[in-house]
């Protein structure tokens, strides 16, 4: 009896061992498609940091950078799917339709699309980060530290992701300083250092003493450094580009998610998912706070950070009104994910209209 048991145990162990060996031995290749150059020190740079984490976990990866959100994207995706990649991460909103289109043609390849909402085929997942949580922290700092009560905000394109960021930032700033005004300038680009700096300069000339940005280059923090105003880093820690100006940065931390998903492909446990992680899950990281931030404000910010992480505080807690004074979120309620995902109206206190 004892012998039989041992033998079965050994055989089952051997069986298990071969299973795991085959799982590890299955060469999973992951591909990443980037909108910008990996050296932008912003959006694409951080995705590439995530890719390197996948590589460090023992998987083969490739990437294609500077892929336009056009028919080119389809061609690149098809080529990656054809050349033996098992999972492809498409890291920009505009890849949404190409991703779904190519996913239909390659049902055995897994597709992971960042910041989109279309999952038309079972092999397409979407993932995004709750950057608005980070922007609530920036708003708190900006509202407390502005002297002119004018805060500049360089925005990229009028899409819900950006509007949500502006709203979250403004609501947080108003909470600590009801007199602030957020001035928005739309640069209509994600990445054009020349235009971004001209936009930042215009805001500084009009009295903004803190500049927030939702574009990807380091030009704005550099302009702020030169003009002697404060700014916040976008996507990665931009402190080294403007040590005096940068108060903190909101970092996008994709690595853990990427490793988890590639592992799931390797283990055969990958399934369609819609992921929206924030500070709590570590997808949104706040860089070190600059010493220019007074210590009591630092404490307040740290508290807010842990409250946002634990879910004790939600960045969109009522009462929230739109610009015309209509109630968006009732007192004591919080905005649900559906509302956040489709947010296309400014909250009260933001100046100007959303461009069409």
């Amino acid at each position: 009896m004892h012998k039989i048991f041992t033998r079965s145990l050994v055989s089952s162990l051997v069986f298990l061992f071969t299973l795991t060996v085959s799982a590890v031995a299955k060469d999973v290749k992951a591909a990443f498609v980037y909108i910008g150059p990996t050296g932008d020190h912003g959006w694409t740079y951080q995705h590439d940091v995530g890719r390197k984490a996948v590589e460090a976990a023992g998987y083969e990866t490739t990437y294609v950078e500077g892929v336009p959100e056009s028919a080119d994207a389809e061609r690149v995706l098809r080529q990656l799917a054809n050349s033996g990649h098992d999972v492809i991460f498409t890291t920009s909103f505009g890849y949404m339709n190409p991703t779904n289109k190519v996913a239909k043609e390659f049902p055995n390849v897994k597709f992971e699309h960042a910041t989109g909402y279309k999952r038309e085929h079972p092999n397409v997942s979407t993932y995004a980060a709750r950057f608005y949580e980070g922007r609530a922290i920036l708003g708190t700092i900006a509202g407390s530290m502005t002297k002119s009560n004018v805060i500049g905000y360089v925005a990229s394109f009028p899409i819900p992701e950006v509007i949500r960021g502006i709203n979250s930032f403004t609501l947080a700033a108003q909470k600590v300083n009801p007199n602030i005004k957020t001035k928005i300038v739309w640069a209509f680009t994600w990445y054009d250092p020349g235009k971004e700096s001209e936009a930042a300069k215009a805001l500084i000339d009009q009295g903004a003493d803190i500049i927030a940005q939702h574009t990807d280059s380091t030009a704005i923090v550099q302009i702020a450094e030169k003009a002697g105003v404060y700014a916040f880093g976008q996507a990665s820690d931009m402190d080294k580009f403007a040590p005096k100006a940068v108060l903190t940065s909101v970092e996008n931390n994709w690595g853990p998610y990427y490793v988890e998903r590639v592992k799931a492909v390797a283990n055969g446990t990958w399934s369609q998912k819609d992921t929206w992680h924030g500070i709590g899950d570590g997808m949104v990281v706040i860089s070190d706070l600059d010493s220019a931030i007074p210590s009591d404000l630092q404490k307040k910010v740290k508290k807010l950070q842990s409250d946002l992480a634990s879910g004790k505080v939600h960045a969109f807690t009522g009462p929230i009104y739109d610009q015309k004074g209509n109630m968006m979120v009732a007192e004591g309620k919080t905005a649900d994910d559906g509302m956040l995902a489709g947010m296309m109206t400014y909250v009260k206190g933001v100046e100007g209209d959303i461009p069409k």
Partner: protein
Amino acid sequence: MIIDINFVGLIITSIMASAVPLILASCGELITERSGVLNLGVEGMMIIGAISGFALMTVTGSLFIAVFGAMLAGVLISTIFAFLTQTLITNHVATGLALTIFGIGISAMIGKNFVGIPGKEFPVLFNSLKDTIPFLSPILFGHSIVFYFAFALPFFTNYFLKKTKIGLIVRAVGDSPESASNQGINVRLVRYACILYGGAMCGLAGAYLSMIYTPQWIENMTGGRGWIALALVVFSTWNPIKILIGAMIFGGLTIIQFHMQAMGVRIPVQFLTALPYIVTIVVLVVISRDSRKIRLSTPSSLGKSFYKDN
């Protein structure tokens, strides 16, 4: 909002800063075109200047070497154009377009290693006087040497073309290469020199972008400014002083638009982006209606190859 005079001064300063690369490239191209050569490679030469300047600054740490290296790079790449169009007598338009494509490609290739590196601070002049006079001091003081050079350049160019013997020769070569040649002028040599000078100015314009305006290297960072500079030469009807005015208008469009946005005024961005080209077409239409004006302002042999030489 009340618009105070200092604020207007700041806006004008921003506009002037954005006009610098346009003035440099246009004044260079103007000399080239005045000698009868149409070089559409301005964008390509600018981007080569931008990467060369930034790369040399990063590698050598010397701003002086970087600025002159960028100009030299512009000269070198325009030598290719000069050799093709003047010695091998290729078509100006096709060669110029090829130069732009070549420049964008090769700069991206060299630039791979320089992406994401912060630039160096470029020294500014008269910074201590910046707060002395309201309105005027931000406009006049606290800029880089390239800035002052750019605003003096149109006047020098004008003087050179109108008052000096060499300027007269350049114009003669551009208007009637045959007659100039008969007078014993080496047309090919003059055109070579004018092309190389244009290359140097475009290289400097590029270096201004990557070293002073937004001190970093980004692929394709000239962003169509070379094409605007080309349009500007036509807009100015080959008159350097009018380049100054045109560069302020063309360069100021985005800045004015951002300021209007911050003030809450909305204008369609696409319209403003197209405006320099629309204005140029309007100018072309206006001058081409009057044959006397064409003869007075356009170099007659512009873009035509010159075969005979002595």
